[in-house]
């Protein structure tokens, strides 16, 4: 499956936010808004990796573990996703 090219600016952030909300619904079974923090899963939770794998698969975003565990809001994580995607994009 080819991954969508990362967009620019608000498009990219919005896309990342929407993907995160969907992923959190699937993996964590919670409906989150952009300003909601991810529930505290505990650092050892395997669910964090479920999220990471889906971010990689759907958006080509390789977000480091420590970023996922920082307690960011959905929007904050979306920013990390956008950054990770732009790092991965071919130049």
């Amino acid at each position: 499956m080819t991954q969508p090219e990362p967009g620019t600016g608000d498009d990219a952030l919005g896309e990342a936010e929407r993907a995160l909300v969907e992923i959190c619904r699937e993996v964590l079974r919670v409906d989150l808004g952009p300003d909601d923090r991810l529930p505290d899963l505990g650092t050892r939770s395997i669910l964090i990796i479920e999220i990471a794998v889906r971010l990689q698969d759907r958006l080509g975003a390789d977000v480091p573990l420590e970023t996922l565990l920082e307690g960011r809001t959905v929007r904050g994580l979306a920013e990390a996703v956008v950054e990770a995607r732009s790092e991965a994009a071919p130049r």
Partner: protein
Amino acid sequence: MDRPDIHLLAVGTSLPGPAVDNATLAARFGLPRAWEQWIDTFVGTRSRHYAIDLETGERRYTLADLAEAAGRRALAAAELDPAEVDVVVMSTSSPDMLMPATVNVVADRLGVDGVPTFQLQSGCAGAVQALEVAAQMLRCGPHRRALVLGGDTSAKHFDVGMRAPDVPMEAQVNGLLFGDGAGAAVLGTGPAYGSPVLRGVFTRLVGRDRSPGQTVEWFSWGDRTMDRPPVTEDFKAVEESAPRMAAEALDEVLDGVGWKKSDLDYLLPPQLSARMTERVLEELDAPGAEPVSRVLEIGNTGNAIPYFQLEQVLPRLADGDRLAGVSVEASKWIKAGYALEMAAH
């Protein structure tokens, strides 16, 4: 009637192919950095060996191949001709086929014939079960030499076409926790200078009214379209129960031989993962005993585990040294343990 001493005369092991590290697995299955970081931190196991080719899925070694190699090494180290083997016992949770049993394929290849053979279908306590059965056969019959074998391969559980997002995370973690491998030991009665004596061995099912911590299905024509996952693992249940069960197993084996923890020179703990081994060792609380652990490099080799540990420690044993090994099986919950002592004569 005097019960003869049972000596562990030799051990042999076999690992397929190269060590496969976490980075290689992550790259092969397109997994993100976070996955690798999580594994490094919370699982700890660094590498393992596979009987299949990770790229193609081709099975390069069968369990029979690995067990044969291990058996050959053990027989050679014991300077024992296959014709002198009186009984063969093998344990595994992953036989190549249900019929013929892998133990009989291996016996055939090694040139062992005309003797009783037993295959134990078992998880991580299997090697100790095999030890117990072989020891009893040596004690109760005219038998003098036993070949004991154990091993597992994950070949049947591996779908090299799998896409990480489609596979339950527990199954992925399983895939890197476990490693393929086989081991063998030669046991004998009668004087055998310079080899450790099996002072005690026990296994005990403690699974009444408990849900399994692991399940593994087998399929045939009738249920090929089965919807249930072929393998499940309840890591939480394992983490909650395994350390305590291991501690109980150590207490039981030590009580059985009249030793205290402080008598132990070496301790061979369960090997689910590097992190779990650390936690179990804390629970076992035998600081004077040196732990013998291979899990970091070869993963959880199931029915082969004690052979790999014994291989490491046997050359180091001095007269009077005492060691205890402990296993916990998290399917229907089995505690097991054994004690060896390097007798001076």
